[in-house]
Every structure is written in structure tokens, then in C-alpha cells.
């Protein structure tokens, strides 16, 4: 470590270990984060400037891939679906809150009920997708007999371009609501009983109690729920892949799936184009990530 001699007999290490130690501990993490996250981001930027089939020679074409994106109807469909996912997926938060409030009581066997409600989050997304695909199946699925009971016509949810994305989002909400529920349940444990008591003495109850007393105390839980839900919405790849393969005729694709389809799927040989989609998706996420980091930083400072 140190070759220089110094009069006090203290080495470089001794003098600097307080400052060096955190970096040493961070080093493996930083190295792998750089190797698997940071560097690939720049590689994606670079590949997006080329025409490359993943096998032969890559040819530099400047911004042509981005130019084509602007004319690509499939790109706009995917973008629009991403927006639908982002907005509708947030329904998991009030849904989870509602169930958590409902389950936050002392009844015999409440732990069992809680675990049953949490169950869908434990199953793999792929399995959830499969189960819902069967549920929606127009010839053998449960959905149509149920609709029939209410006198509603048969539906081909996953085969109809105008309903397919909503069908997949509904499937995605099932585990996501369970996740938000568990976040709120733990949050409710931390709610201060004295405050509730005081509010009650002041005559607060029902929705007012919820809005002015409980919810402010649940803010940390709400923040985490928003974060995981937005992330969940943006990485909604697996369910689409399992339930529809992006179909019918591409109407349920999101950007992540479209990127996979053009570059890595059975007929996908356009690495450059896929990379360009990835860059656009990255830039969209960057807005959100920046907001998230800014809030974290602000709270740290206030804290």
C-alpha cells in the first residue's frame, strides 16, 4: 500500500482509512453497476446509430433509425399503450389501500386472510398471465359464462385490439394490488394510536379521519407504492409476452416489447432499431427517475 516513510509512523492507509473505507465497500457495487448498467446505456446509444442484424457487419447510418421511428405507426401504438399502463396501473394504490384498511382489524384468523390476499403477488407474473389468458379464453374461459349471467354478450378480450391492453392491465393489477396492500398494512402498524384517539375526541371520523389523519401518516408507504407501481408499469413485458405476444396485430405492444420484437424475437434482426426504441424508453424513464431522485434528495435534506 504505502512505500513512503513518515515520521509519525502512520501510513497513508492509517491517515486516510476513514475516507477510503466507504469507497472500498462501494467498489464492487460501482464496478458491476458500471459494467451491467452504465456502459450498456452508452452502448445502446451507439448501436442505435447503426444498421446491424446482430450477426454481420454493422453499418453507420446516423439518425436514420430515429427518423424511421417517427413514421412508425407501431411505435406510436406502443407509446400510447405505455401511457395506458402508467395511468391505469396506479389504480393499484387506492385498491391496495382499501383492502389494507379492510384487513387492518383484530379478528380470528386475520393472518390467514392477509396471506390469502397477498398470495397473487407471490405467484410468478408468467403464471398470472397464463391464468388470466385462460380466464379470458372465448371458448373455454370462465369470463364469458360469468358475463352471460348478467346478460352481457360474449367478449374476446385478448383477441380484440380495443380491449386487449385493458385486459392485460387488469391481470397485472391483481398482483400489484396485493403488493400495495402489504405496503399499506405495514404502514398502518406505524400509525400513531394517540393521534387517532385525539382526532376521535375532536369528532373526526370516516373519510375525514382517513384523509386528514391516517393518510398523512401513510405518506412514506404511499411514496414507495407509487415508485414500485410505476416501475411495474414500465417493465410490463412478461405478461404481454405470455398473454398475447403483443397481438392481435401488434395492438398490445408496449415499447419494451416492441424493442424485443424488432431486435431479438424470432423474426427480429434490427439491433439498431431496437436500440433506438430502447433509447427513447430510457429518456422517458429518465424524466421519472430524475423526479424520484430529486424527491429523495429533498427529503434527505429536510430529514
Amino acid at each position, binding site marked *: 500500500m504505502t512505500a513512503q516513510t513518515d515520521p509519525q509512523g502512520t501510513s497513508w492507509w492509517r491517515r486516510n482509512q476513514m475516507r477510503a473505507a466507504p469507497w472500498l465497500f462501494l467498489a464492487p457495487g460501482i464496478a458491476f453497476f458500471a459494467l451491467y448498467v452504465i456502459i450498456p446505456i452508452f452502448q445502446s446509444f451507439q448501436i442505435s446509430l447503426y444498421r446491424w442484424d446482430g450477426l454481420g457487419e454493422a453499418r453507420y447510418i446516423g439518425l436514420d433509425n430515429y427518423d424511421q421511428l417517427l413514421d412508425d405507426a407501431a411505435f406510436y401504438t406502443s407509446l400510447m399503450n405505455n401511457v395506458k399502463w402508467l395511468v391505469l396501473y396506479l389504480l393499484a394504490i387506492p385498491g391496495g389501500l382499501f383492502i389494507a384498511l379492510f384487513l387492518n382489524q383484530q379478528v380470528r384468523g386475520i393472518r390467514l386472510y392477509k396471506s390469502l390476499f397477498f398470495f397473487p403477488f407471490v405467484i410468478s407474473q408468467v403464471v398470472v398471465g397464463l391464468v388470466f389468458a385462460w380466464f379470458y379464453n*372465448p*371458448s373455454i374461459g370462465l369470463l364469458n359464462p360469468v358475463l352471460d349471467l348478467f346478460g352481457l354478450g360474449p367478449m374476446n378480450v385478448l383477441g380484440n385490439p380495443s380491449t386487449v391492453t385493458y385486459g392485460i392491465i387488469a391481470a397485472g393489477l391483481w398482483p400489484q394490488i396485493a403488493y400495495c396492500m402489504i405496503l399499506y398494512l405495514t404502514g398502518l402498524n406505524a400509525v400513531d394510536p394517540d393521534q387517532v384517539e385525539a382526532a376521535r375526541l375532536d369528532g373526526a371520523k370516516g373519510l375525514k379521519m382517513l384523509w386528514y389523519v391516517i393518510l398523512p401518516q401513510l405518506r412514506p408507504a404511499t411514496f414507495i407504492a407509487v415508485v414500485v407501481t410505476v416501475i411495474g408499469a414500465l417493465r410490463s413485458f412478461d405478461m404481454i409476452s405470455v398473454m398475447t405476444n403483443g397481438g392481435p*396485430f401488434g395492438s398490445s405492444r408496449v415499447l419494451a416489447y416492441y424493442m424485443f420484437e424488432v431486435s431479438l424475437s*424470432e423474426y427480429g434482426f434490427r439491433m439498431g432499431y431496437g436500440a433506438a426504441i430502447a433509447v427513447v424508453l430510457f429518456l422517458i424513464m429518465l424524466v421519472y427517475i430524475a423526479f424520484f431522485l430529486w424527491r429523495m434528495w429533498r427529503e434527505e435534506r429536510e430529514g
Partner: protein
Amino acid sequence: MQSIFKGVAAGLAMTTLLAGAASAELGGDLRIFFDDQNPAPKAAIEGTVERFQAMHPDMNIELTLIDREANKTQIRNYLTANAPDINGWYAGNRMRPYVEAGLFEDVSDLWDGQLGEELASTRAAMTIDGKQWGVPYTYYQWGIYYRQDIYEELGLTPATTWEEEKANCQVILDSGRKCYTIGTRFLWTAGGWFDYLNLRTNGYDFHMALTAGEIPWTDQRVRDTFANWRELLDMGAFIDDHTAYSWQEAQPFMVNGEAAAYLMGNFVVAPMREAGLTDDQLGFYQFPEITPGIPMAEDAPTDTLHIPAQAENKENARAFLRYMASAENQGIVNETLGQLPVNRNATVPDDKFIQAGFELLSNAEGGIAQFFDRDASAEMASAGMQGFQEFMVLPDNLDAILDRLEQVRQRLNAE
């Protein structure tokens, strides 16, 4: 990754003398990646390896079975890193990306002489830039599989012309059934319909030029094909909600008698029989003529074996391909597969549908196409089949669909 053959040979050495006479015994290693884990193909390749091992007892053969769908994406990895000596793939344009990237070995030498003559029917499909890049081991016909008993009940006979086909369909519809079952969730089944409608409307040469990207998708002749398709769509000939089903999920409609026919490859016969249809109930007929006088062409996808350019034991691999393509082995393999041997000297299995297919393809004067997604380039195939599915659901979108396909074609041609 399933089975490894090491020295299985010992007990089987007796069958060798017949076929082994031509080549000397070889030693060393041979690694085979075969792209099918289904029971029949698995038995077929394992049988071939056993017989080949018996001819070359000192060879260390390692057989790896890869899932058919997984192979379609894994091939890029294993051809570029740690390549096997032999891998399974498909004929036609489907092999072009790998040929052009220099990842397949030129095996034209195997096609010189007698073997090449025996395999002549697929020479064109295996040729890119005047060279051959693999050998075929099986192919199968496409056509209309139909419920004979329903046809008899309604007093129908299989159509030979488009007018008859539509008239039959109307009778079937009037009896409360659908004419055709189909599941377009994975798109390619719609490609089969387009292939046949286009082959019958415009003929083989037009179809091949279109899939090769030489003809605009907005051409009037392409519109004619879609107009014929639209006649069936307007009648309500296809089952409802087909976008939700895979080709397997579409079978019960035919088995239950809710639909009378299925345009499909011969691989549909085995599951239909398993589902309980007897050979008296299940029939087969050629897709009927549409434009009179156009020679009948057929779809007959060919499955193939190739030698990766980076293979380490190319001599052994060549010996294996030569054996795989031989008349003797193709007879045995296709008996197991329930499909057609490519080698014209091989015995054709004694089965109603295979014999019908043999008859059909031997008389295919128009020519033999591979399949839409093997004749067209990967991107064109993907965009095309999505367009076909959209057309089947929203036929009024035809103009937008054709414009989009034309856009893809022009971009591909420009690249």
C-alpha cells in the same frame, strides 16, 4: 439438453454393413444440436444417431435436443460461439441471414453427384448464391384437412374449383357450422392462407417474386388475392375469435364438429387422431383452383440440417449429413415422423395422408414453395403475417395494411 450417446454402438453393429460400405470408419467427436423435442422427431434423430454410431463405433457422438421455438433465437448464440458440428434449421430465406453472415458451411460438395440428384426436388430451396448450405431430411404437404363424415352428411364432395369451394362453404354455414377453423394468435396460420390464396390466384412465379420483395404490395394482383380472401371473410367462413387461439387450440372446433375443415400442414394429423378422429372421419384434399389454368403449386416446408462454419469436426459432420440424406435413412426417419422423405429413392410410409401428400407434391407442376415466413425475409414475414391477421379481423383496413407492407418492402430493398 437431453440425451448423450456414447458408444451405444456395440450391440447395434449388425446393421452397419449395408450403408457403411461406402465410407470408411471415422473416429473423433461429433456434436449435434437437433431442434425438436417432440416424441416423434426425438425418436427419429435418436434412431439415426444410433445407426450412424453403429457404422462408426469409435466416434464419440453427443446429441443435444433443443426446443423448437427456443432454437429459433438460440441459433444466433451457438453459431457465433461454441458452435456444434451439426445444427437443425429450415430451408429457403430462413437460412439467408446465417449464410450471409458466413455462419453456415458451404456443403455443395455433398450435392454433387448421385445424392444431389436424389434430393433434386429441394435443391432450389437449399441454394443461395449458387451454393448449397445444408441437407433436407423431411418435408410435409399443406392442404385442406376436412371432416369426411360432415361432408357426407351434407352431401358434399371436396371442391376442385373456387366456386365449388364457396358453394360447399355456404352449405356448411347453413347447417350451423363454420367452414374453417384457424387460430391466428401466433400469426403464421394466416400466412398459410395467404400463401395458398396467392399461389392459386396469381401462380407460383408471382408468389415467389412477391415474397422476394420484387413486386409492390400495392399491386392490383395482390389486391385480387385479398379480394378472394374477403369473399370467405364476408361469408363468415372462419371461426369467431380466432385471434385468441393457437393452432392447437383451434383443433377442438373441428374435432367437435363446429368447423368442417382446416388448412394446415400434415403435422395436424397426429393430434387429430389422438383427439379421437378416425381415418374415416378425417380426409384431405388439395386447395382448389382459383384462377383457371394456373399450374397448381404447393407449400411444403422442408426441415434441414446444417454444418456451422465454426464446427470443429466437419469431416464427421459431412459423413453424418450424407447418411441423414440417404434413401435408406430417410425412409426410416420419415416412417417415424409420419412425414415425407425428400430423397426420391426412399420408401414413402404407408399412411393415407402421407401417400396423399406424396401424390400431391409429385404432381405439383407449378412449383413447391417453403412457407410465407421461410420464403420472405424475416422482417417482411413478420410485418406480412401481422397484416394478414389484421385483414382477417378488419378487412376494411386493407389499404392501410398494404401501404404499410409496401413501406417495409421499400425500406428492405433500399438497405
